[in-house]
């Protein structure tokens, strides 16, 4: 459905009426009806987006709000009765807004909210729902305050709070900046190794030269005990003893250093 600059309000209303006629005609085929419904939805999407934008600042993704609003529009199209003499837009706006409000009410906080506030919210919600049921209309703040036994201003504050739940995605890119994730530090898994190496190097330097040589050959050069024995001309047993003694000493020093 085009609604270019040439389409006047009257023309739009006439088209709208025709489409609703098709939708309500018993003789219309399913595909005719589906087509009329699609055109009606498309015609009113700008209104849906206008309303969704009003709510988008509350920190809920625009697409989610628009989706809830579109569902409201579809419900309005399906339930609208042209014979009642109410313009479709007057009928649709409250339905769309109602769908958006339900979306916000059903969404939960994505950040940790203090228990006191959560409990307050639960009490107020319970009182709100019970009163709405009993009264057959939305309750007033004073009525909720009385029923929930919560101070009037606390009810008002809680209503204010429940509309704020903004969190930013870690990969969100602020205008003119790098994504948030890129600006976060990371724990470098090698950092502990640096510290250990520094400690060992200091302690190693304090060992007698022959012991230091054996340790170096064993752990830095990766030679076996037999290879070390061969290289320095002692038995493998002696290398083993030397290594054990040096390591014991190093361990004691490390423990002492920490």
């Amino acid at each position, binding site marked *: 459905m085009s609604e270019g600059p040439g389409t006047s309000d009257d023309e739009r209303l006439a088209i709208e009426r025709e489409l609703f006629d098709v939708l309500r005609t018993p003789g219309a085929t399913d595909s005719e009806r589906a087509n009329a419904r699609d055109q009606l939805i498309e015609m009113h999407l700008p209104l849906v987006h206008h309303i969704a934008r*009003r709510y988008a600042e509350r920190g809920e993704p625009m697409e989610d709000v628009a989706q809830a609003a579109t569902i409201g529009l579809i419900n309005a199209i399906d339930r609208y009765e042209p014979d009642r003499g109410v313009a479709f*837009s*007057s009928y649709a706006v409250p339905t769309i807004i109602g769908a958006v409000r339900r979306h916000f009410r059903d969404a939960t906080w994505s950040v940790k909210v203090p228990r006191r506030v959560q409990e307050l919210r639960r009490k107020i919600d319970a009182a*709100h729902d019970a009163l709405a049921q009993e009264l057959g*209309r939305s*309750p007033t703040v*004073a009525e909720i305050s009385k029923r929930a036994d919560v101070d009037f201003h606390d009810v008002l504050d809680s209503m*204010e709070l429940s509309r704020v739940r903004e969190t930013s995605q870690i990969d969100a890119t602020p205008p003119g900046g790098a994504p948030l994730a890129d600006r976060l530090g990371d724990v470098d898994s090698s950092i502990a190794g640096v510290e250990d190496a520094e400690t060992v190097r200091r302690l190693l330097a304090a060992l007698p030269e022959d012991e230091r040589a054996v340790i170096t050959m064993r752990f830095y050069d990766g030679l076996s005990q037999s290879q070390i024995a061969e290289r320095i001309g002692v038995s493998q047993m002696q290398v083993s003893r030397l290594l054990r003694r040096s390591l014991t000493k190093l361990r004691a020093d490390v423990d002492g250093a920490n």
Partner: protein
Amino acid sequence: MLSRWLNAQVSSSPDCVRVEFPAQTVNMAIARAVAAAIAARADLTVDQIEDVRLAMDETLSHVMSVAAPDSSVLCEMCVTDGIVSASIRCPVASPDIPEPNPFSWTVLSALVGDVDVTIENNSIVMSWSVARDSSVQA
């Protein structure tokens, strides 16, 4: 309309609240919160309070889009006999301002009653009202 505004201005009625702020969108939240608090105090229902917030939003969006540079918006809300009325006034750059966007108009008239837009002395004045539900015992 003018007379109603002038009456409100000179009245010292305790049931009127007036807020003035620079015509910048950052201030819309203040006006919304004030409007919601007044609507709550006037015993409008929770749904009506939401309507009032949204109506304030629509009104200010239009008013600020035509406001003269560095001008202030004056918002006055009164509660009389269970009717909450709002009047939003702001100097405009030129008296030749565009009509509110048709969606704004549709939304505004679905939310609140007596919607009116006029130009008076180079200011835009938008007004509307909401009545307390007759089943509410104030």
